[in-house]
């Protein structure tokens, strides 16, 4: 357990000033949007005084997340008895974003703090639905996080969230299966392809991995291959799903697909989980949080799995990419954004992280990920391999400059209708990606973006 007293002393000193500050804060909060007035140009560096004052003043905030955050909320309320946090699991993934979008459109009913995955941050951040946390001085936290997750928590200049559970990719592999068939851990994607062939030939019920087309996975793989298919500059968007990096990925994945080397089960189905236990899915190039998920599968996966860095395309320096990963954000609709920001700070920058680790999550702050106790934690499913030591390195190798579309949830929702068809017919993925691109350009134009279709 790590105790942080970074703000403690200052907060204590503030107590006397609080009466005055909270009075003005209440006025500001009643004014609603006035509290966020300095958002935008020039509002770059605020201070955390308003946040500390809000904590003392107390109040009620609502937090939407699908993580099991009950213990976190309880601990927070114990520390700040004036604050009541209403924890709501409004749904997972698409459902969650649809509801957020609905409440924003309806003008009421939105939570104060919401969990938003990295890919969806621009969708809510770009139209200004999220509070720019720089106004509370949170930009100063930058050095406390891995560069990759910090960069992706920004939309334009604005800091729209604090990262939780970032997901630099690593290669999870089933050691028992690899040993049985004499397969070495692949260092390059060519070796990965060779391993896939060898394994499936030796036992047709075994596959190197499972994939029936998953937008989050595909974009991460393109990211890892060096592709940057989406660029967003205000209202100007470029979509190019045939850039060099994307083609590198499809050149490998097309072969896996056309030769029938991908197990046809969708990620997260019970069939897929079954594959992770019985060895029919031999590897997962996935976000590092998958370590906690595999370890949570129980005694049947004990000692089965190991982790290695992602294979590369050129055999050179390792490269990773973000896969999954979330941030917590404060919504503009919040009646008490300073208090919401205070909860956010505690959740992803202070003690909240400890409880997140306890629940099997991979935390975001470097202070946690570089804590010797965390680095040396042994995981039974991984034969007591100290996987966090590897992840600490992979988060430094995430390729820079990736951007998501400001309508990425829509984009991901039509992935199955376009690229998914290539998966279904075992045909050229590039054709599917072209269909995806056309649909994305078309949709973006109708949304009023200036789009360059690559």
């Amino acid at each position, binding site marked *: 357990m790590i105790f942080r007293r970074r703000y403690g002393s200052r907060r204590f000193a503030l107590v006397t000033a609080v009466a005055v500050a909270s009075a003005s804060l209440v006025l500001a909060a009643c004014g609603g949007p006035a509290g966020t007035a300095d958002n935008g140009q020039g509002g770059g560096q605020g201070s955390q005084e308003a946040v500390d004052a809000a904590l003392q003043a107390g109040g009620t905030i609502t937090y939407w997340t699908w993580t099991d955050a009950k213990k976190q909320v309880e601990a927070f309320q114990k520390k700040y008895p004036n604050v009541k946090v209403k924890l709501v699991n409004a749904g997972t*993934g698409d459902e969650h974003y649809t509801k957020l979008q609905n409440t924003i459109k*309806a003008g009421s009913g939105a939570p104060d703090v919401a969990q938003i*995955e990295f890919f969806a941050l621009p969708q809510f951040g770009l139209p200004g639905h999220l509070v720019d946390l720089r106004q509370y001085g949170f930009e100063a936290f930058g050095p406390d996080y891995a560069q990759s997750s910090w960069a992706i928590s920004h939309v334009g200049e604005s800091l729209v969230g604090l990262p939780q559970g970032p997901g630099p990719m690593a290669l999870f592999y089933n050691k028992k299966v690899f040993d049985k068939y004499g397969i070495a851990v692949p260092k390059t994607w060519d070796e990965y392809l060779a391993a896939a062939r060898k394994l499936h030939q030796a036992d047709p019920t075994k596959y190197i991995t499972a994939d029936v087309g998953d937008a989050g996975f595909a974009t991460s793989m393109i990211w890892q291959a060096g592709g940057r298919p989406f660029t967003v500059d205000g209202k100007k968007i470029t979509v190019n799903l045939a850039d060099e990096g994307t083609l590198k990925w499809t050149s490998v994945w097309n072969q896996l697909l056309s030769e029938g080397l991908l197990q046809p089960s969708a990620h*997260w189905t*019970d069939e897929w989980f079954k594959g992770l236990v019985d060895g029919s899915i031999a590897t997962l190039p996935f976000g590092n949080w998958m370590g906690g998920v595999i370890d*949570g599968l*129980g005694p049947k996966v004990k000692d089965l799995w190991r982790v290695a860095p992602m294979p590369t395309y050129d055999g050179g320096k390792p490269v990773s990419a973000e896969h999954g990963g*979330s941030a917590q954000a404060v919504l503009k609709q919040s009646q008490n954004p300073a208090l919401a920001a205070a909860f956010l700070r505690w959740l992803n920058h202070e003690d909240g992280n400890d409880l997140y680790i306890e629940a099997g*999550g991979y935390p975001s702050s470097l202070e946690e990920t570089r804590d010797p106790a965390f680095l040396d934690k042994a995981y039974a499913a991984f034969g007591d391999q100290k996987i966090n030591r590897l992840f600490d390195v992979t988060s430094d190798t995430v390729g820079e400059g990736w951007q998501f579309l400001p309508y990425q949830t829509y984009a991901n929702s039509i992935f199955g209708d376009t690229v998914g068809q290539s998966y279904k017919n075992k045909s050229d993925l590039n054709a599917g990606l072209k269909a995806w691109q056309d649909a994305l350009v078309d949709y973006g134009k109708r949304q009023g973006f200036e789009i360059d279709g690559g």
Partner: protein
Amino acid sequence: MKPRKSPLLTGVMAIFLIYTLVPLVWLLISATKTQDDLVSTAGWELGDTFALFSNVRETLTYRDGIFLRWVGNTLLYVVLGAGGATALATAAGYGLAKYRFRGRRAVFALLLGSIAVPGTALAVPTFLMFSSMGLTNTIWAIVVPSLVSPFGLYLIWIYATEAVPQELLEAARIDGAGEIRIFTTVALRLLAPGIVTVLLFGVVGVWNNYFLPLIMLSEPDLYPLTVGLSQWSKQAAGVGADPIYNLVITGSLLTIVPLIIVFFLLQRYWQSGLTAGGVKQ
């Protein structure tokens, strides 16, 4: 007359029977497995441990027993929604069948039109309307739309026309009974099979309703079983995944039990309703 037997028909019905029962059997078998056994044994074999009772216990207590809360919500929505819809449909259907008044034909046209519109298509407009009325995320967002049952109204209308003889009503009037009394003492009894049928459709409809509560509610404390179970099922994906398929499956099993009970209880009324008027008098 001896009923004729058709081997072909019997065969076809047998196939349908198997088709209906197979998922139920799978559900029953799966509900006896632990999460570990679910992902490591084949669908039709039993798991290493018989975990039905511990699954039920865990389903009822997981996350502070929110499942029971969902059962309560579903019952509330069924009683208010399906019960209210049946009462409204009965009163309106009887009135339209037995009284002549201006605009009756217009109501008929409107009714047939609204049967043609699927409820799913109305969900989003209903959401926007309820949102501007401040009713989203309340129980009324589920109950009020359920009260409207064009099909039930139509059914009662037709049924009342056939099953309540005009002569009987006139006889009652001559005896000096008021319209309300005629409705409650004479008509309601004759309408009972029709009412039960509408009620049954309503109960099943509200019990299985998924899309409307999905978009209307964001508070798990208000969820009906359908939305709650789907949330559990989706919890298995992504960061901090918590695969609890054993609870989802056991919960599904528990969810259909009340429906089966309702069917058995109401079945005889329903059957007599369907065959009413089927014989020459």
